[in-house]
């Protein structure tokens, strides 16, 4: 039997859920995810945890260095290390 284009597997649904956290899921993908959420407990649990993680990160306003900033820090520190 041909699988309906609206139905996705649990893995696919989780992948869409990940993309949705970054606003990268298309409308059709979000529709497929919503449909899956109606009946799949595993997807529902994953989605809940995933959304909670996004909210936590958002609330924390946690920050990190950009790669170039870290590299600059590393090269400056290496110069000092070599003097030791």
């Amino acid at each position, binding site marked *: 039997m041909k699988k309906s284009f609206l139905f996705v597997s649990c893995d696919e649904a989780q992948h869409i859920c*990940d993309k949705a956290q970054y606003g990268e899921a298309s409308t059709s993908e979000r529709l497929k995810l919503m449909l899956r959420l109606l009946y799949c407990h595993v997807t529902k649990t994953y989605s809940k945890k995933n959304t909670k993680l996004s909210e936590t*990160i958002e609330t924390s306003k946690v920050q*990190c260095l*950009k*790669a170039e900033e870290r590299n600059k*820090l590393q090269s400056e*520190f290496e110069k*000092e290390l070599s003097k030791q």
Partner: protein
Amino acid sequence: MPKHQINPNDWVKLYSDYLFNYTITRVSDREIAQDLISETFLAGLKSMVNFKGEASERTWLISILKRKIIDHYRKINSNKGKAEVRMNYHSDTETEGDWLEERVSDASDKTAEDTLVNSELGDAIYDCLGKLPEKQAEVFKMKTMLDYDTETICKELDITASNLWVIIHRARTSLAECMEKNWYN
């Protein structure tokens, strides 16, 4: 034998992001934060002989960084005589006295308590990130904290988009589990 060892070769790789997050919430300027971290590493290097190994390297570096941040604010305050503070009060009679209400705490203002909770939450997130494989943590930070788009990360790390999403999925699953244990409960 001391509980913890010291290895400055790994400081930037292991602690720079953690120290940066700690500093940026206190000084709100990326360049100043980086300078303070750099000074912290140098001070750590000079006083390595004083490291007894009772606390972790990270805790020891944070204690140095705290002093650097205090020194930074002392320096700023030593110039306060040169600064001019302006406050605009309403002078017309109808709104006279309203200035006081305008200056009472605004719900949207960040309180010291909010800062503390955010700082502890940041620590919890970094503790969990520290448990991830290096690549997962790197991709997660680039995507989630630095808001880089998929294409940029793929180019920079030489990975495919599907590779990126697999890494992100693993990182998010581990982080959610870790936060569930260490923060939510």
